[in-house]
C-alpha cells in the first residue's frame, strides 16, 4: 500500500489526461478549433435537437400504396405479355385486389400458352424462392400472387428510394447537417438541426411529386357524372374548384426523365421550366410532333396542373409548366421535380420540434443546475469527511471530465435528459467514495491503525461497490437498448458515469490517499 504500484499510477495519469484533454475542446469555439492543427483533439459533444433546437420527424412509407403499385405494374405486364402481335391470348376481367392479380382466360385451353407467356412475372429471387405464384384453374381462372419475399423486397427498395428522395429534398432546402435514416421496416427518421418550424419541409415531404404528361381524351365529356371511356381516367384539377379532365391513361413522358427544373418567370408569371434528359426529350418531341393542336395534360400526383395546347412540335427537350403558381409554389415544384418523385406517399407519424430559444434555455438551466449540484455535493463532502472529502471532490471533478470527454470522443449526443443523467451521476458518483470512507471509519473505530484501516476499508468496500454499480449499470443498459431518442441520451450519460465513478473511486482517490499517507504518515485518521 505504501508504494502504490507504478503501473497503476501511469494508468490513472493517462486516463485523467485523456479526460481533461478531450473535454477542453468543448470550451473552445468551433471556429477556433478549425484553425488548430490536425492532431489537436477537436471533437465536441453533439447537442441533441432538444438542446440546439430542431425538428424530428418520423415518417412512414405507405406500404399499401407500394404493394398496390406493384400489382398495378403486374397487371400492365400481364396485359403486354398476353397481347403479342398476331398471337393474342384472349382474357377478360384483368384486375387486382390487395394481394393478387386475377383474370379469366377466354379459352381455358390457352392455359399452357398463358403460363409460358407469364413466366417472366415469376422469377427466381436471390433466396431461391419464386417471386410470384401463378395459378391457372381448369376453368381458366388465373391468379398471380406475389410472394411475401417479393413484396418485402419491393417495400425495402421503395423505402431506400424514399430515403434518397427525402435526402435530396431536404438538402435542396439548405438545412445544415440533416440526419436521415431508416428505422425498422418502413420508417424514416428525419432530424433537422436548427429547424424550429418545419412546415415547409413537411409540405415538401408530403408530396409524392410524380409528374406525368398525358393526352386529353377529346372524345369524352368532362362533365360531372359523364361516362369515362376505357383507357382514360377522370382527374381533378390541382386548383380548387377547377374543372375535371378526362385524360388518356397512357403516360407520354414522365418526371423520371427530367434532367432539371427551375422556377422562372414567363410574361411576368412564375413558371417552372423543365429540361428532359435524352430519352425524355425524344419521347416529348415525338408526342408533341404527333399531336400538334391537341391539349397536353401536365399531371402532378394525379391532379392536372394545366393542359395547354401543343402549338408546334417541341424538339429542344425543354418545356415550361405554367399553371397559376405563386413564386413560392413555383420554387417548391421546381425543387420537388429536381429531387425526383417518391415511390409512395409518406405519412408523418411523429413530430417533435424545438425552437432555438427553448433549447438555449434548457442548456443554460442545465449548466446552472449542474454547477450548483456539483458545488453543493462537493461542499457537503468536505464538511463530512474533511480532507478525505477533498480527495473525493477531486475524484468527482475528474469524473465530470471523463464523462464529458467520453461523450465527445464517442460523438454521443447530449440531450436534456442526458444533462439530468450527468447531474444525477454527480450525486451518485460520490457513492463509491462514501462506501469506502464509511468502511474506513468503521475500521478505525475497531482500533485499526490508519494504514490497516484504509487498506481493509478499500478491500471490503470493493465487492459492495461492484454489486451496487452493476445493478444500476443494468438499468442504464436496458434504457439504452430499449429507449428512444432523448431517453437513450440519458442512458449513455448514466452508464458512462457509473464506469467513471467506479474508476475514480477505486483508482484515483485511492492513489491520492496513498500519496498523502506516504507524505504525512498520520498516527490517527481524521475522517
Amino acid at each position, binding site marked *: 500500500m505504501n508504494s502504490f504500484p507504478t503501473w497503476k499510477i501511469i494508468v490513472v495519469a493517462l486516463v485523467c489526461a485523456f479526460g481533461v484533454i478531450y473535454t477542453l475542446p468543448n470550451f473552445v469555439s468551433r471556429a477556433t478549433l478549425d484553425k488548430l492543427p490536425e492532431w489537436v483533439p477537436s471533437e465536441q459533444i453533439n447537442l441533441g435537437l432538444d438542446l440546439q433546437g430542431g425538428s424530428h420527424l418520423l415518417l412512414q412509407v405507405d406500404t399499401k400504396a407500394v404493394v398496390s403499385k406493384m400489382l398495378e405494374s403486374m397487371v400492365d405486364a400481364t396485359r403486354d405479355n398476353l397481347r403479342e402481335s398476331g398471337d393474342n391470348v384472349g382474357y377478360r376481367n384483368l384486375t387486382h385486389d390487395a394481394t393478387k392479380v386475377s383474370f379469366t382466360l377466354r379459352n381455358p385451353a390457352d392455359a399452357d400458352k398463358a403460363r409460358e407467356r407469364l413466366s417472366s412475372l415469376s422469377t427466381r429471387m436471390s433466396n431461391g424462392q419464386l417471386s410470384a405464384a401463378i395459378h391457372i384453374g381448369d376453368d381458366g381462372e388465373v391468379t398471380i400472387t406475389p410472394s411475401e419475399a417479393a413484396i418485402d423486397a419491393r417495400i425495402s427498395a421503395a423505402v431506400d428510394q424514399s430515403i434518397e428522395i427525402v435526402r435530396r429534398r431536404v438538402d435542396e432546402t439548405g438545412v445544415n447537417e440533416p440526419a436521415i435514416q431508416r428505422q425498422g421496416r418502413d420508417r424514416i427518421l428525419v432530424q433537422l438541426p436548427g429547424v424550429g418550424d418545419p412546415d415547409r419541409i413537411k409540405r415538401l415531404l408530403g408530396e409524392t411529386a410524380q409528374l406525368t404528361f398525358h393526352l386529353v381524351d377529346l372524345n369524352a365529356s368532362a362533365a360531372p357524372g359523364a361516362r369515362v371511356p376505357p383507357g382514360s381516367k377522370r382527374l381533378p384539377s390541382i386548383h380548387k374548384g377547377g374543372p375535371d379532365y378526362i385524360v388518356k391513361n397512357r403516360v407520354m413522358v414522365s418526371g423520371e426523365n427530367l434532367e432539371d427544373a427551375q422556377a422562372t418567370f414567363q410574361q411576368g408569371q412564375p413558371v417552372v421550366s423543365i429540361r428532359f434528359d435524352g430519352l425524355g426529350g425524344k419521347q416529348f418531341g415525338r408526342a408533341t410532333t404527333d399531336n400538334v393542336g391537341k391539349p397536353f395534360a401536365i399531371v402532378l400526383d394525379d391532379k392536372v396542373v394545366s393542359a395547354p395546347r401543343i402549338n408546334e412540335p417541341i424538339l429542344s427537350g425543354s418545356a415550361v409548366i405554367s399553371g397559376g403558381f405563386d413564386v413560392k409554389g413555383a420554387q417548391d415544384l421546381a425543387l420537388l421535380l429536381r429531387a425526383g418523385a417518391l415511390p409512395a406517399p409518406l405519412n408523418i407519424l411523429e413530430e417533435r420540434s424545438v425552437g432555438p430559444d427553448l433549447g438555449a434555455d434548457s442548456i443554460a438551466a442545465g449548466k446552472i443546475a449542474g454547477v450548483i449540484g456539483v458545488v453543493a455535493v462537493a461542499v457537503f463532502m468536505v464538511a463530512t469527511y474533511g480532507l478525505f472529502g477533498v480527495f473525493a471532490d477531486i475524484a468527482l471533478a475528474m469524473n465530470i471530465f471523463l464523462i464529458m470527454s467520453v461523450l465527445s470522443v464517442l460523438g454521443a449526443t447530449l440531450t436534456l435528459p442526458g444533462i439530468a443523467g450527468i447531474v444525477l451521476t454527480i*450525486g451518485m458518483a460520490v457513492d463509491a467514495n462514501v462506501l469506502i470512507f464509511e468502511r474506513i471509519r468503521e475500521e478505525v473505530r475497531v482500533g485499526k491503525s490508519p494504514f490497516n484501516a484504509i487498506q481493509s476499508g478499500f478491500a471490503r468496500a470493493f465487492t459492495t461497490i461492484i454489486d451496487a454499480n452493476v445493478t444500476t449499470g443494468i438499468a442504464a443498459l436496458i434504457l439504452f437498448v430499449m429507449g428512444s431518442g432523448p*431517453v437513450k441520451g440519458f442512458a449513455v450519460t448514466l452508464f458512462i458515469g457509473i464506469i467513471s465513478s467506479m474508476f475514480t473511486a477505486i483508482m484515483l482517490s485511492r492513489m491520492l490517499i496513498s500519496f498523502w499517507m506516504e507524505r504525512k504518515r498520520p498516527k490517527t485518521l481524521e475522517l
Partner: protein
Amino acid sequence: MYKIKLIPDNTHIPFLKVRMIAFAISALLILGSIGMFFSAGVNKGIDFEGGILIEVGMPKAPDVADMRGKLGDLGLGQVALQTFGSDSDILIRVQRQEGDAKAQEAAVDKVKVQLAKDYGDGVSYRRVEFVGPTVSAELVQTAIEAVGAAVLAMLVYIWLRFEWHYSVGAIMALVHDVILTIGMFAVTRIEFNLASVAAILTIVGYSINDTVVVYDRIRENFRRYKKMDVKVLIDLSINETLSRTTMTSFTTLLALIALYIFGGEVIRGFSTAMIFGIVVGTYSSIFIAAPLLLLFGLSHRSAEDDGFKSAEAESGEKG
C-alpha cells in the same frame, strides 16, 4: 475540524421492531397507489396517449381562460392549457385527433392560425410535438417491456450473487418503489411521459443499489457472527450501513434538488419523480428489504449453503 455527521456513530436503532408497522404502511400505500392508478390513472403525456403538444412563448402574459375558450371552440376536442415556467409561456395540449397523421397536422395548423389571429406575430413556437396513435401504442409497449426487463435482469443478477431470499426481497422492495412512484404520478397529476419512464428505471437502479449495500453487509455479518440471533444481526447490519445509506441519498438529493430548482420546467417532472423515488428507495431498503429477509426465514443455515457465492467477498476480509 468540525465535521457534519448525518448519523451518529454506533447507532443501535431497532429497525426490526417496527417492521410490522412499516409493512402495514407500505401495504396501505401500495393499495392506495394501485387504487389511484386504476381509478384516476396517470396523466399520460402525448408520448403515450398520442396527441399534440405546443409550447408557445407569448409576447406578454395572456388571459389563459380566454385563450382556453377560443382554442376550445376550434372543435378539436379536449384542449388543455397551462402556464409553463413563466406566465407568458403556455403549454397547449390537444387530444389526439380522429384519423391519421394528417388530421393531427391539420389541428396544429388550426391552433396556429387561431393564435395568429388573436395575438399577432409575436407568438413564438418553442416546441411543437405530435405523436400519432401507432407510435404512442408502441412507446407504451416498449416502456412496459423496458421496466419488466430491468426488474428481471436485477432479479437474475442478485440471485446469482446472493441467495433467493435476497433476490426476492430486493425485487419486492423494487416493485414497492415502482408502484409508489407510479402512485405519486397518479396523485400529483405530473405528466407521465418518456422521461418519467427513464426516471422510474433510474429509481429501479438506485433502489437496488441501496438494497444491495445493506444485503451485502447482512451476508458478511452472517459469516462473521456465526451465533448471533438473526434479528439482532439484521438490525446491526442496517445500523452499520445507515451512515452510508443516508450520505449517498443525501448527496444524490442535493444534486436532484439543484436540478429541480434550476434545471428548467421541461425537466421538472423528471426531477420530482427522481426525488420521490430516492426517498422511497432509501426507506424501502431499510424498512422493507432488510426485514423481508426475516420474513422469508433467512437463517445461519441457509446463509452457509451460500458458501461458494460468498467466496469472492471472503477474500476481501484479508486486510
